[in-house]
């Protein structure tokens, strides 16, 4: 985990990791999913993480989202380590600061689109009536107003992913973590999904996205990070969006 494998934490980073390691034991062998990752994400950035399957992208996202705990190293949010938080505080961090989007959407199959989006507000103290109003508004904003009573099985892949995005953004998170959000979508839906993420980013949400679809992501990313075998092997800030920012 030398400096060679790391990108220096950015000054005034909003979310940053220090020597992050995550090891698993699989079949008697130690798997090093993350091995000394140092990463800083500034407020308002659109960071895209690319790399081959099994390189540790999703593991990194899980740790940034407070769902997983590193073997060693720390994650700091506005200079406060997530691991000084109690379990309840960590859950509150997920409930208020983080929105997550997954490749397989992870919608609750027996809930309607509206109920799925409302669920995101269950754990941050939003009153029942407000939950419904906000969920309806976000679904409307994403063009799903005629789908609110539909269950996931009755929606197309693109619609399901938009419901998942609505669920992620309805609580106005500071950071949106997207784990291969276009992985299960056709090209048109993938384009729409990336465009939506970019739009949200422009509205002020920091986005960290893991993807294989570098071509689509490149247009909107402010930074592209390459990972390989648990290490960060490169960072590219030459994308159009990055140039726009600079």
């Amino acid at each position, binding site marked *: 985990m030398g400096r060679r494998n790391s990108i220096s934490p950015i000054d005034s980073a909003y979310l940053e990791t220090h020597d992050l390691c995550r090891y698993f034991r699989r079949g008697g062998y130690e798997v090093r999913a993350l091995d000394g990752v140092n990463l800083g994400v500034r407020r308002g950035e659109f960071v895209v993480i690319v790399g081959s399957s099994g390189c540790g992208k999703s593991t990194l996202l899980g740790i940034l989202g407070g769902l997983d705990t590193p073997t060693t190293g720390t994650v700091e949010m506005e200079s406060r380590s997530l691991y000084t938080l109690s379990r309840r505080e960590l*859950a509150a961090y*997920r409930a208020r600061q983080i929105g997550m989007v997954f490749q397989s959407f992870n919608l609750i199959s027996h809930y309607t689109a509206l109920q799925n989006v409302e669920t995101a507000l269950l*754990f941050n103290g939003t009153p029942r009536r407000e939950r419904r109003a906000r969920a309806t508004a976000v679904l409307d904003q994403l063009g799903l107003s005629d789908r609110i009573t539909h269950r996931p099985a009755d929606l197309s892949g693109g619609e399901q992913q938009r419901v998942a995005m609505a669920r992620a953004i309805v609580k106005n998170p500071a950071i949106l973590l997207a784990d291969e959000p276009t992985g299960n979508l056709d090209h048109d839906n993938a384009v729409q999904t990336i465009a939506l993420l970019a739009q949200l980013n422009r509205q002020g949400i920091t986005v960290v996205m893991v993807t294989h679809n570098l071509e689509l992501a490149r247009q909107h990313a402010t930074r592209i990070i390459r990972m390989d075998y648990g290490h960060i092997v490169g960072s590219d800030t030459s994308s159009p969006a990055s140039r726009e920012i600079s």
Partner: protein
Amino acid sequence: MTFTDFVAVSTGNLWRMKLRTFLTVSGVVIAIAAFVSMLSFGAGNQQYITKQFEELGLLTTMQVYPKTNSDKTDSVKAAVLDKSAIGKLSLIPGVNLAYSYEAISVIAKLGDSTISAKAQTLPEAVLRTKLFSRILAGKPFSSDTTRQVLVNEDLVKSWGFKEPDSLVGRSIVISVKVTSLDSGLAHVLKDKGETIRDRLKRISFDSLWYREYRSRIINNELNGAAQRFVNGFLNCREEISDTLTICGVIEKRESHQLKTGSIIIPQATAARFTTGFSGDPTELLAAINSGTIFSGNRNTANKNYPMVTLDLDPRAMHKTVRDSVEALGFRAFSFAEQFDEIRKFFVYFDLALGLIGLIALTTASLGIVNTMVMSILERKREIGVLKSLGADEREIRFLFLAESGMIGVLGSLFGITFGWLITRIASVVAKMVMAKQGIPATELFAIPIWLILIALVIGVGVSLLAGFYPASRAAHIDPIEALRNE
């Protein structure tokens, strides 16, 4: 999440799995129904006995007896239960009234119908106590000297009447056969035609010089004299009759320790029936023991009573009264204290029945565990999603506990209703069987509020307990593992 959110989410989840929820709840329903119906049997019997005690006025009644030989080893000296003792007993704080139990065997004749009955003599004031308060027809006698009697409901049937009212105002002839020492003594000299002269004729006076012969003759004569006395005492009795009017019919009251006569005669009116001995040999022996055998009129202050009843103030402390009675040298029997023992028995009885019900509930709880574990396995990804959305372990645990709690609430409510239904059916069947066997119909089952509350608490409690392990398991599910792409 608020409480309403927990209830709404868990209700939705249970509703989604209708068949599984129905089957699991059914297990709890059956267990709670068994629990309720079994305890209802205990509660019904307890309620019946309590009602009997209260209606009979036994909870304000204490009975006083002379000490027996075994009691006489106590440090307190045994006292005689006579009129002066009644006076002392009535002065004990908390005692409203003290009266003796005097029963005489009488022949009661109404028209052509004659029956043997036990008559009890009572002061008029006693009829105002709860023990004698249930008048079925007519009214109690108005004074101790009135020529009226009360009869109990048994005599209505014995005399062939259907309604108690039919007896009120009718005249009955009460006859008592009494005996006295005179009739016994008269037979010492002569019995069955054999005079003292006949017996003297059988003695060989020449042989009286021999000591053995003399002893045998004396023993024979003494034994013979005793036999002739008893024979005369028991068989040569005088009949005393009086015509009295039935003023009312009283409800029959009988229980262990409680004795009431079929005919109740005012104390002063009954005085002439209680002159002499009734012919009961034990009465004679009691008189010999107490030294009152030669006291002439036996209705005096010297007369000993087998029992005295105390009517107590409802607020009186039975133990205090009993201690005072025992301090006077008597033995006391408190129905209230016996009632406490019965209540203790019912606690154990209910516990045993409840335990059987709990076994059924334990089986039902395994059904809940199974349902919840299955549910968790099926909803593993959902739990992962909820955690990613910010649910903490406590909330996930509560969510699943709310589901098992809901199963408990539903199972308990329907179980109590089902249990009630079972007891109603069992009650109807039991009453039909009792009617067939000529037993007065008695309500054997009761579902008091405490039973409903206990069933609800146990039903929900056991369900929550059963849900605790699955809920903890759900709370500890690793969200990364749960959300992993399959």
